[in-house]
């Protein structure tokens, strides 16, 4: 993981793709969002979505999964090169989450992350605060998901 000082506005990273299966959509929905269009193909077809659609919270959680997994891969690679790895802190939240188009059973969504803003935390000066725009694009090239997320990232001289 890069330190705050190594990050620049506009940096973009592809974080991976995920295929939403009918079973996966129904499993998440039955636990967290059992609205009829997330649980049943026919109900999905009759809805505004036009098919069995993933819960928006499922799409957001998958975006998180790919961000974390890709970040951990980058950290392992940096460690293998003998480089220090920065810690990621918790996130204080996000804004502007848009479910732009439905994610239907069988869709493959590719996620990317782009840096929008950077500042040093006033309360915790050993940490930087990063805003990133994370987006999801389906196999037809249509933007389906967008979110402006905030995260704490360690500064290079933290604790020094």
């Amino acid at each position: 993981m890069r330190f705050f000082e190594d990050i620049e506005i506009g940096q973009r990273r592809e974080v991976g793709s995920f295929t939403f299966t009918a079973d996966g959509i129904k499993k998440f929905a039955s636990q967290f969002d059992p609205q009829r269009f997330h649980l049943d193909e026919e109900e999905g077809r009759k809805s505004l979505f036009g098919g069995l659609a993933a819960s928006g919270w499922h799409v957001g959680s998958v975006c998180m999964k790919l961000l974390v997994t890709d970040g951990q891969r980058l950290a392992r690679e940096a460690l293998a090169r003998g480089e220090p790895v920065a810690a990621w802190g918790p996130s204080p939240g996000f804004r502007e989450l848009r479910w732009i188009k439905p994610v239907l059973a069988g869709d493959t969504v590719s996620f990317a992350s782009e840096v929008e803003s950077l500042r040093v935390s006033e309360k915790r000066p050993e940490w930087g605060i990063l805003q990133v725009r994370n987006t999801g694009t389906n196999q037809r090239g249509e933007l389906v998901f967008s979110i402006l997320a905030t995260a704490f990232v360690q500064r290079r001289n933290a604790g020094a």
Partner: protein
Amino acid sequence: MTLTFEDFPPGHFGSFGPRRVTREEILAFAAEFDPQPMHLDEAAASRSMLKGLSASGWHLCSIMMRMMFDACIGQTASLGSPGVNEVRWLAPLRPGDDLTLDIEVVEARVSRSRPETGIVTFKVTARNAAGQALCEWVSPIIAARRAATAVEQAG
């Protein structure tokens, strides 16, 4: 009894819960969707900014969605949601916490592009048993208006 746009005037809608969140649930969600050590590993979590094992913020939001469903969305002629204006993760959700949910309607207006529907914007707050706010979100849903629902049922 189906709830429609008209059932959500601005103001306090209700308080719901409690809903206990177990360590096993926290670990299972984190393993699938947010495998950061602070959500998976007791020792690593104690060294993190949150000083102890805590649930993924996405897990907390997903549980809040389920509590919203049980409180009202499940009985509402809802057509889905375009997104979430803002989520604030204010304090960590810990294993064994009992969550309550406060639901407030901050705005209700008829849709200009689809006047048979309305847009209801909720502010939802999850609290632990001590009353501490853990997460707050502001998000709209699209709900059918009563007249449109009546036509559909008659037809």
